[in-house]
C-alpha cells in the first residue's frame, strides 16, 4: 500500500521548534509526529513552508533579544545566532529529506496557471469582518476597530501545493484555512485545523 502523504503547514513546524505552550500545541504536534511515524506516512514540506519557518526564526531571535544598544557588534552577534539556528534547522530537515521521511516539494505547474488558480480561489472567498478590541500587546482599545479575517493568498498556495502532491491531510493551527474546506478545488483532501 502506498504511504499516505500529509502536508504540515508552517505553524506546525514553528510550534514544534518553539515548543509552544498555548493550547498544548507542542504536545499536539508531538502526537502528530508519532502517528505519522507509526503509519509510515510521508511528510510534505514545500519551499513556501521552509522559507516561512526560516523567516520566523530570523524575526523571533532578533525581536526576543533584550535591548541594550545597537552597533555593528550587536548586529553581528544577533546575525550569528540566527545563522546558527538556521543551519541546525536546515541540517535536521535535510536528514529527514535524505531519509525519505520528508519530501521537499514545489509546484510543477507553470507560473501563469499557478497564479490563475490562486486568483480564482481568492476571489471566490469573501472572508469575515469582526470587531477588534485590543492592541497587539493586550491593552484594551478606547474604540474598537473592524478587523478583516479571511483566507490569504499564501494559505491558498499551501493548499494548492498539498493538493498537487496528493496530500490526504493538511495539518495547521491557522483557522484561516477553514474557508478552504469544502472548496471543490480541494476535493479529497482533509483540512485538519487544530486549536
Amino acid at each position: 500500500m502506498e504511504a499516505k502523504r500529509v502536508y504540515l503547514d508552517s505553524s506546525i513546524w514553528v510550534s514544534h521548534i518553539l515548543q509552544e505552550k498555548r493550547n498544548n500545541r507542542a504536545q499536539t504536534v508531538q502526537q502528530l509526529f508519532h502517528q505519522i511515524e507509526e503509519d509510515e506516512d510521508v511528510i510534505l514540506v514545500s519551499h513556501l513552508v521552509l522559507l516561512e519557518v526560516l523567516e520566523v526564526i530570523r524575526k523571533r531571535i532578533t525581536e526576543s533579544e533584550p535591548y541594550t544598544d545597537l552597533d555593528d557588534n550587536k548586529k553581528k552577534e544577533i546575525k550569528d545566532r540566527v545563522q546558527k539556528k538556521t543551519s541546525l534547522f536546515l541540517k535536521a530537515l535535510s536528514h529527514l529529506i535524505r531519509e525519505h521521511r520528508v519530501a521537499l516539494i514545489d509546484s510543477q505547474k507553470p507560473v501563469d496557471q499557478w497564479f490563475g488558480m490562486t486568483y480564482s480561489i481568492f476571489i471566490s472567498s469573501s472572508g469575515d469582518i469582526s470587531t477588534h478590541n485590543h492592541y497587539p500587546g493586550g491593552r484594551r482599545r478606547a474604540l474598537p476597530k473592524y478587523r478583516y479575517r479571511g483566507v490569504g493568498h499564501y494559505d491558498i498556495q499551501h493548499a494548492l501545493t498539498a493538493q498537487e502532491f496528493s496530500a490526504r491531510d493538511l495539518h495547521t493551527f491557522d483557522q484561516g484555512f477553514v474557508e478552504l474546506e469544502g472548496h471543490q478545488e480541494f476535493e479529497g483532501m482533509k483540512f485538519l485545523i487544530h486549536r
Partner: protein
Amino acid sequence: MAVIRPAKKWDAQDQREQRAPPSGIESGQPPEETWGKREMLIRYPLNEIVAEKTREWLSTPELRPWHINRSIENAPLPVSVLSREIDELRQIVQELKESNSELQSRVSALEEKLAKEMAADNLWEISDNNLLILEEASGIVTPPGRKQDPLDALKGLLMEYSDETVDSVELVRSVRGK
C-alpha cells in the same frame, strides 16, 4: 517588367483558334505597322464574346456566405431574407462558442490531472532534486549517518526564544504579511 503589346494578344488568340498569322508578322516589319493592318484584316466578333462571357459568369454558382448580387438590375434582397441569414449565422457562431468553451474546459481538466499525476509519481525525484538545490544554495551538507533523530533535533530548537505568550499562528501570519 514585360509589357504585352496588343499584337501579342491577338497572336495568342489566333493560335488558339488555329488562324494563320497575318502576312507581315514574321517578315520583320515593325509592330506598329503590323497592328494597323491586323485591325483591318480581322473581323472580331467582340459583342458576341462579351455576351457569352457574361452569360458564363452569371451562370457560375455563387459561394455563400459571401453573397454577391450579380443581376444587372442590382435589386436589393428583402430585409426578411437578410435578417434570417444573420440569425442563422449568429446561431452558428453561438454553437461554435459553446463547443469551443466545452473543449477548453476538458483540455484544462486533463492538463491539471496530468500535472497532478506526474507530481505524485515523481515525488522522490522532485524532492531529491530540491534537496540538492537547497544544499547548494545554503552551503549546508548533510553527511550520511546521524547522532540524533532529526525530528527530535528540531524539537525545541528555539526554546530559549519561547515563552508563555508565543503564538505560532501569529508568528507565521507576521511573515505572511497578514
